[in-house]
C-alpha cells in the first residue's frame, strides 16, 4: 500500500510521488552511505555518487556541476538566494522587486527583509497571471539589489516569459549588478530550462515536484559572472561555503535520478500530461459557471486551476477530499490553509473573492492515468452539482458574480 492511498491523486504540484526507478537508485545509499566529506574509501564512493547526481541536475538545466548547491528543497534554495543576496550587501538595505503571485517561500523571506528596512515592490499581474515588463522596468531604481521572479506559478501553472525579461533587462541587470533570482520549483523537468537562456544568477529547485524524494533541492548559482551571494548558515564550508551540513547522499542521488528521468522523457511526457489536462478541462466545462484561471496559452501542462461559481470554497474542497472516491486536490497551494481565506495568487489576478475561494488546483503527473481523469471529472461534476442543489436559490445564481 502506498502512502497516497486510494485517493485519485491530482496533487502533483504539491508533491509528485516518488518514481520507483528513483527509489531504486536511492536505496543503496539509504542503506549505507558514508559521509561524502570523509577522505576514506567509502567516503570517496559517497562523494562520487553526490557528484554524479550534481552533474545530472546540472545537465537538465544546461549548467555546470559547480553551479549546483544542494539544499533541503526549494524553500531553502529560495531563502538562500534571497537572504544570501541580502547578506552579500553586509547589512546595507536596498530595494527588492518581486511578484505578488510568488510562492510564500519567496514572499516571506522578502517580506522579512522588508521588516529589516529593505524597500519591497510586489509587481501586480494581469488577468492571465503574467507581469507587465513595463511595470517591472519602471519599478527598478538605483538601489535595486534583487529581482525575484517565478518561472511557473504553483497555483495556476502560469509560465512567466523569462526570455522576454532577459531580452529586455538582462543587460541592465548586469550593468547595475542587480541579482536576478528565479523560483523554478514548478518548472524543473516540466519545461526546457536553460540557465543561460533565463539569464538568472540564482535559480531555486525542488526534487519532489518531479517525482524525486522530498527534503532535497538545489540552488543554481551562476559562476560566470559570479552571482553576488553570501552564505546564510555557517558551519563547515560544504557546497562551496554556501550551504554547510553533511550532504544527504541518498537524497541527492534521488534528485539526480529524477532529473535524469525527467530529461529523457520531458517532451513525450509533458505532451501526454497536457492531453489529460485538456480532457479534464473539457469534462469540467460540462458544468455551467466554471472558469479556468491562468491563460491557457501559457500554462504548464500539469496544472489546471478551476473556479466554480455558486459553491462555497471550503465545502467544495471538503466534499472532493472527503467524498467517495476521494480526490487528492488542493485549493491553491497545499501550504495555505483553506480556513485562512482565498488564494493570494488568484486575488492578484483579479478573480472575485468568492470564486477565488471556490477554486481547485488539479495537478497531474507522470502516474496520472486516463481513468483518474474521468473519475476525477465525474466526482467533481457530481459534487459541484450536489452543493449547488443544497444552496438556497439566490446563492447559486451566476449573476451574483457580475458585480
Amino acid at each position, binding site marked *: 500500500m502506498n502512502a497516497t492511498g486510494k485517493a485519485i491523486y491530482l496533487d502533483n504540484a504539491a508533491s509528485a510521488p516518488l518514481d520507483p526507478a528513483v527509489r531504486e537508485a536511492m536505496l543503496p545509499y539509504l542503506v549505507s552511505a558514508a559521509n561524502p566529506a570523509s577522505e576514506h574509501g567509502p567516503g570517496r564512493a559517497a562523494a562520487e555518487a553526490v557528484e554524479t547526481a550534481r552533474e545530472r541536475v546540472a545537465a537538465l538545466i544546461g549548467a555546470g556541476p559547480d553551479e549546483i548547491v544542494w539544499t533541503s528543497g526549494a524553500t531553502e534554495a529560495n531563502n538562500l538566494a534571497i537572504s544570501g543576496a541580502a547578506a552579500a550587501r553586509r547589512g546595507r538595505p536596498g530595494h527588492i522587486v518581486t511578484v505578488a503571485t510568488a510562492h510564500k517561500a519567496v514572499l516571506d523571506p522578502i517580506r522579512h527583509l522588508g521588516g529589516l528596512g529593505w524597500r519591497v515592490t510586489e509587481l501586480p499581474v494581469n488577468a492571465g497571471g503574467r507581469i507587465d515588463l513595463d511595470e517591472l522596468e519602471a519599478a527598478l531604481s538605483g538601489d535595486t539589489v534583487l529581482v525575484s521572479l517565478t518561472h511557473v506559478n504553483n497555483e495556476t501553472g502560469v509560465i512567466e516569459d523569462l526570455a522576454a525579461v532577459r531580452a529586455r533587462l538582462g543587460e541592465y541587470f548586469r550593468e547595475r549588478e542587480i541579482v536576478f533570482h528565479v523560483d523554478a520549483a514548478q518548472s524543473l523537468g516540466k519545461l526546457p530550462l536553460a540557465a543561460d537562456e533565463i539569464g538568472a544568477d540564482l535559480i531555486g529547485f525542488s526534487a519532489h515536484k518531479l517525482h524525486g524524494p522530498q527534503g532535497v533541492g538545489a540552488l543554481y548559482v551562476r559562476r560566470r559572472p559570479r552571482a553576488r551571494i553570501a552564505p546564510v548558515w555557517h558551519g563547515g564550508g560544504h557546497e562551496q561555503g554556501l550551504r554547510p551540513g553533511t550532504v544527504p547522499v541518498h537524497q541527492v542521488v534521488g534528485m539526480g535520478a529524477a532529473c535524469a528521468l525527467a530529461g529523457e522523457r520531458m517532451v513525450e511526457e509533458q505532451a501526454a500530461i497536457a492531453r489529460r489536462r485538456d480532457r479534464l478541462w473539457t469534462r469540467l466545462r460540462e458544468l455551467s459557471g466554471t472558469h479556468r484561471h491562468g491563460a491557457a496559452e501559457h500554462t504548464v501542462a500539469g496544472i489546471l486551476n478551476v473556479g466554480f461559481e455558486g459553491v462555497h470554497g471550503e465545502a467544495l474542497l*471538503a466534499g472532493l477530499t472527503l467524498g467517495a472516491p476521494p480526490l487528492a486536490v488542493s485549493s491553491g497551494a497545499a501550504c495555505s490553509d483553506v480556513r485562512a481565506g482565498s488564494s493570494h495568487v488568484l486575488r492578484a489576478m483579479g478573480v472575485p473573492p468568492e470564486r477565488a475561494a471556490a477554486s481547485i488546483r488539479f495537478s497531474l503527473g507522470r502516474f496520472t492515468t486516463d481513468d483518474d481523469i474521468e473519475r476525477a471529472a465525474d466526482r467533481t461534476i457530481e459534487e459541484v452539482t450536489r452543493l449547488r442543489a*443544497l444552496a438556497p436559490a439566490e446563492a447559486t445564481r451566476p449573476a451574483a458574480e457580475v458585480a
Partner: protein
Amino acid sequence: MPIYSDAVRKRFLAPAHAGELPRGERVLEGRAAAAGGSELALYLAVDADGETIENAVFRAHGCPSCIAAADWACEWLRGRTLRQARGLTAVTIEEGAGLVPEKRNCGLLIEDALEEAV
C-alpha cells in the same frame, strides 16, 4: 487537529434534511446570511394548531459545518414545539452537531434563521 468531527463529516456528505417547502399558511421560513458568504434558509411546517413542528428542512450555501449543523437542527426541530424551537441556541447546536469551537458561528447562523422563522 481535524476541523470536522465524524458526525459533521457524515451529515455534510449526506444530509437527510436538505430541501425546501412550498410557501403556505403552515410553512414558516427563516433566512440568515453571514459575512463569509454563507447563507441559510430554514423551512418549518407546523401542525394545524400552529404549535408543533411537523417537518423541518434547510438549504445552505456554506462550509461543511454549516451544512451539518443545519441538518442536525432540522432533525432536532421535528416534533418539537415552536416554544422549544425558540430556545435552541448556538451552544446546543455546537454540542449536538459536533462542531469544533472555531465553527461556533455556524450555530449562530441557524439561531438567526430560526429567530426569523418563529
